């Protein structure tokens, strides 16, 4: 090697070292600036451009709220317990007190694509997919070359599709016709609703003129828009179906107990709502017990609360039957008044024991969150659990009524009391058990309600009207009637709600029920036969 090339090599080395250390200096300065709200935006930009592996660690910690800066501005990542690790290596001893840089929505919006740009080339496909999906959410022109390179290298079809959408965000607003057509093809295939405003702008729907001049592109945009619209309608429909099912399952749980006591015993129990409330408070009591004595197994309170609530409310129901209701059989007006009085007593008792305000029943961790089945439609775990629980309870009631000796006796007493007594069935005892089971089922309904809404002394008052509506609509005496009534009302309510709003939807439902009852007073499913008519 001659002197000249040696010198140029040395100069190149020095320059490279200098720029590397300058970049490292920039990175350290940018890390320091993360604590300064006026300079944090520019600092994140600098860090995003950096090739240093510490850059990703910095941004990830900032996003996770685990980044700490000491008084000198040296960044640390807070780990489990009080563990601290220095981002730029070194001993890891912070100088002075640690502060947490302020992270607000503006910073989070900036961090999302920045983090995604680092993760485009990660080996783990799940991370790459998440990064691609994040980038597809908004238009990131400055990341275009990076995304194109990553898309070209990608082998996994699902991730490739996500990259296609991310590129579509950029290309639809560009000027290259071929890229636009490719982008529209990707959008049509994915039928992603977030492109709807762009497509409407291009094809000139709404009131404006089409912004797209090329006829081919406009045609492709129109078919993309049609695909997107039909997808949105499908998702809406499926969503409303699920919401209707979940509302129906809540109504079913509330009304099933009433269907048993009213349908089988012909007792108008105005305290039914309070039995729901007591079931909910039993759940609260079990949760309190667990948090005092088994704090590490908090999440198990729910399976324990189910039998506890059943037994508690069944007990109260049976006590009610023995003390008040058995004297009032055949006198519906008196039963109505007496049970209404009992409902007031129960509400006030709960107020005295637990206080007049709502109590907080926390969802166990396995019931929080949901799963995104389709874009924009999330199946929440708590609602799913209530649907499953409602089916379980219905199956239990059906099994008990159809397959057990007690159920046989209950059905016999319902159909013809004198004949059943003549056959040797202890009708009084059967009444007590029936009332107890009906109340117990109401308690189970209360457990479900505690997971979905607020638990307060007036909980029962909110659901009593709906419970009676379901039983009256469905027809008394048959389980199928309650099922039909509950799910019918739930689905109808949820199909009306998007169009009319929550308040008008409720009013419309009430109006429809009144009209239906006028035409068919016995409800959807009615018991037939002389004994039933003679009720």
């Amino acid at each position, binding site marked *: 090697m001659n002197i000249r090339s040696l010198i140029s090599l040395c100069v190149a080395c020095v320059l490279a070292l200098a720029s590397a250390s300058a970049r490292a200096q920039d990175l350290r300065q940018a890390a320091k600036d993360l604590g300064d709200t006026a300079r944090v935006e520019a600092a994140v930009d600098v860090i995003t451009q950096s090739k240093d592996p510490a850059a990703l660690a910095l941004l990830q910690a900032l996003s996770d*709220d685990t980044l700490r800066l000491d008084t000198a501005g040296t960044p640390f990542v807070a780990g489990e317990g009080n563990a601290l690790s220095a981002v730029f290596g070194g001993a890891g001893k912070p100088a002075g007190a640690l502060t947490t840089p302020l992270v*607000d*929505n*503006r910073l*989070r*919006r900036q961090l999302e694509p920045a983090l995604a740009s680092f993760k485009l080339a990660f080996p783990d496909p799940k991370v790459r997919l998440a990064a691609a999906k994040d980038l597809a*959410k908004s238009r990131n022109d400055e990341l275009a070359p990076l995304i194109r390179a990553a898309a070209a290298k990608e082998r996994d079809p699902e991730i490739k599709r996500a990259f296609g959408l991310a590129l579509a965000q950029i290309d639809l607003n560009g000027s290259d016709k071929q890229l636009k057509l490719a982008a529209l093809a990707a959008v049509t295939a994915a039928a992603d*609703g*977030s492109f*709807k*405003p762009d497509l409407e702008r291009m094809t000139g729907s709404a009131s404006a003129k089409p912004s797209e001049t090329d006829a081919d592109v406009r045609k492709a945009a129109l078919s993309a828009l049609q695909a997107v619209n039909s997808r949105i309608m499908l*998702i*809406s429909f499926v*969503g409303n179906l699920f*919401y209707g099912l*979940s509302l129906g399952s809540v109504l079913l749980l509330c009304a099933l107990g009433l269907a048993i006591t009213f349908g089988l015993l*012909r007792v108008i129990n*105005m305290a039914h709502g309070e039995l729901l409330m007591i079931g909910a408070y039993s759940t609260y009591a079990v949760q309190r017990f667990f948090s005092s004595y088994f704090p590490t197994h908090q999440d198990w309170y729910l399976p324990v609360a189910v039998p506890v609530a059943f037994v508690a409310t069944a007990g109260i129901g049976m006590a009610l039957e023995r003390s008040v209701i058995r004297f009032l059989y055949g006198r*519906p*007006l008196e039963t*109505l008044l007496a049970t209404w009085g009992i*409902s007031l007593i129960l509400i*006030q008792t709960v*107020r005295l024991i637990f*206080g*007049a*305000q*709502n109590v*907080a029943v*926390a*969802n166990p961790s396995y019931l*929080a*969150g*949901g799963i995104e089945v389709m874009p*924009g439609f*999330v199946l*929440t*775990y708590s609602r799913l659990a209530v649907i499953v629980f409602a089916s379980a309870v219905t199956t239990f009631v059906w099994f008990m009524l159809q397959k057990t000796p007690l159920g046989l006796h209950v059905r016999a007493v319902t159909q013809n009391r004198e004949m059943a007594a003549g056959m040797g069935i202890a009708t009084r005892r059967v009444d007590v058990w029936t009332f107890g089971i009906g109340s117990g089922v109401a308690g189970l309904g209360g457990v479900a309600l505690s997971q*979905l*809404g*607020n638990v307060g*002394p*007036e909980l029962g*008052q909110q659901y*009593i*009207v709906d419970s*009676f*509506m379901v039983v*009256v609509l469905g027809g008394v005496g048959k389980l199928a009637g309650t099922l039909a009534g509950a799910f019918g009302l739930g689905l109808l309510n949820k199909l009306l*709600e*998007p169009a009319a*709003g*929550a*308040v008008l939807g*409720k009013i419309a439902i009430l109006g429809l029920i009144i009209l239906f*009852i006028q035409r068919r*007073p*016995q409800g959807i499913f009615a018991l037939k036969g002389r004994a039933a*008519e003679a*009720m």
Partner: protein
Amino acid sequence: MKSRFELMLLGLLAAVGCKGPGDAAPAAATSAAPAAASVAAAAPAPAAKVADTGPIKVGILHSLSGTMAISETSLKDVALMTIDQINASGGVLGRKLEPVVVDPASDWPLFAEKARGLLQKEGVAVTFGCWTSVSRKSVLPVFEELNGLLFYPVQYEGEESSFNVFYTGAAPNQQAIPAVEYLMSKEGGAAKKWVLLGTDYVYPRTTNKILRYFLKGKGVADSDIMEQYTPFGHSDYQTIVADVKKFAAGTPTAVVSTINGDSNVPFYKELANQGLKAKDIPVVAFSVGEEELRGIDAKPLVGHLAAWNYFMSVKNPENDKFIADWKAYVKAKNLPDGDKRVTNDPMEATYVGIKMWAQAAEQAGTVDVNAVRQAVAGQTVKAPSGFTLSMDYKNHHLHKPVYIAEIKADGQFQVVWKTEGPVRAMPWSPFVPESAKKVADWTFPWVCGNCTEGKFKGQPATAAL
């Protein structure tokens, strides 16, 4: 068969008609009073009978049961704490304050009845109370008829300025408008589409009307605004949250929530469960503070916003003392939930209102309503919000600073935007054409809360005597 079903329907009617305990037979109570019935008589009506010696009775009119109890119970507690503090330093005019606490149970006609009882039977010198605007509208005619004094500590929709009420909560220009402006700005996400979500009563409806005019003035089309209402106590927000996501697809959108009471708990749970993240679709609430967040897991809600004139996390010596005093009071009185209790904006407004009334009574030398009313104007208090709040000389509203903050994982708030100093309240919104002409000015020559011309315009001062 038919008679049973008639009985069923009778039972249904009974259930629907009677809202259960806590609902006394509605007596002479009037509900849904018209706004700001200005009783600006030339000579004020004779004040309710207030004793001259012995303890001074002070009314506390907050719901301690029902759907609003989650928000209002703490106001009762902090009012009692402030009264204890004043009594400990000698009371007012050498007399001890005696609180009279009543529970109107989130029942609006019952608010009016209880207010009448406080003024006529108990002879209270002043009342601190109400949260929902419908409760305030219900008690307004009672206070104006009996010439009582009410201090109202909660943010509200404006369009009112009564001779008998002092408003220590925010008017729309001190909360709603700055919040929407922030969300429109680049910092707040540059929202182009808006979802206005509220509970179905006067406050959300009026606030959303004002916001619509404001947004229209900023060039937002009607099709870019979605408005939805739910009844008090509503708990099923699945469809609404899904609709918000559908409406927002592809455009930066912000949600303005005026949902009140315990409906907020299932609403925020649904937001969390359906994965509505604050950086994508920020939700700013006007009736949710530290107290309402206490019962929810705040980790999935990080980044959603609230706009108030005070937050517990604001750092200054007055707030440190306020919080310390509150925690000591909670411990001493063994209040439920002990060390998990928090402070919030309406509590601070209650505290400031009571102090201002006490100062005004000392200045006037009497607790007579007419004298104290004159003395309240211009009172100042160095408040826990970090600023000196002053009662305006003319419109019965406080000058308050505006803070916008994001929810943190521990249920506290971090401030992301604030005004330089206190902002003067504009009870009549300049964005609504009918209201822009109106003036709320109780000084001569206007002497009215909602007029376009002074009552004593062009007349000498003696005309008002």
